């Protein structure tokens, strides 16, 4: 799953630590989500969508199937 978390975070001018604090997760988790190495759980995806005022599908995009 690809996502636009990094771009959105940049628009808001937040650091990874800022976003992690707002989502109540570790910075490591935010970094892993941004680099696409970790797909968040559904509750966390909802939290991210709510924080950025968008829908899950506007932030998380299905990656190409191999």
């Amino acid at each position, binding site marked *: 799953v690809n996502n636009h978390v990094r771009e959105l975070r940049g628009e808001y001018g937040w650091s990874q630590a800022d976003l992690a604090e707002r989502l109540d997760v*570790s910075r490591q988790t935010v970094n892993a989500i941004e680099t696409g190495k970790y797909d968040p759980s559904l509750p966390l995806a909802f939290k991210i969508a709510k924080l950025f005022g968008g829908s899950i599908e506007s932030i998380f995009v299905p990656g190409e199937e191999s």
Partner: protein
Amino acid sequence: MRNRMQAMSVDLDAHRKQAEKWREQGRDALLRWQVHAELERDDLLEQRAIRKKAGRRSLPWLVWIALETIAAFFLVDHPVANFWKGLLVALALPPLVMLCVEAMRALVDFDELQRRIELTALALTGMAAIIALVLLLMLQVLKLPAPPIWYVLLLGSPTHTIARRWAKRRYQ
């Protein structure tokens, strides 16, 4: 001659620019490394705090198990009724269960990625322990020289550390 001097000057400028570019890249790399190391340290401190809390809560149970182990070694060479030996084994159950409960609490305190890393590490450690146990049992069944079964417990901690590092690396 003049053309040659001009060419040399251009070459020198190019070299100077290249050297400056490398210096800048080096500075950037160093800065990135410093920031990365600092962030890593913060992450580690956060996780260590959770582990320390779990460690403090587990301490009484660990002391209980240590005392039971000492008592067990003491009872081995003494003629005591099997009932007391059985009771000693049964009394080891509550602290063991409580240690599991504390481990679960620590897992709940972690965020979802850290929890996944811990669970992956635990699964890998469990699989390694099963493999080691089966091999030990086979050695014992075939009556070949085999190390005591509790050696598997000693292998648990380093295996878990390696497995956790590997799992963490996957998400970095």
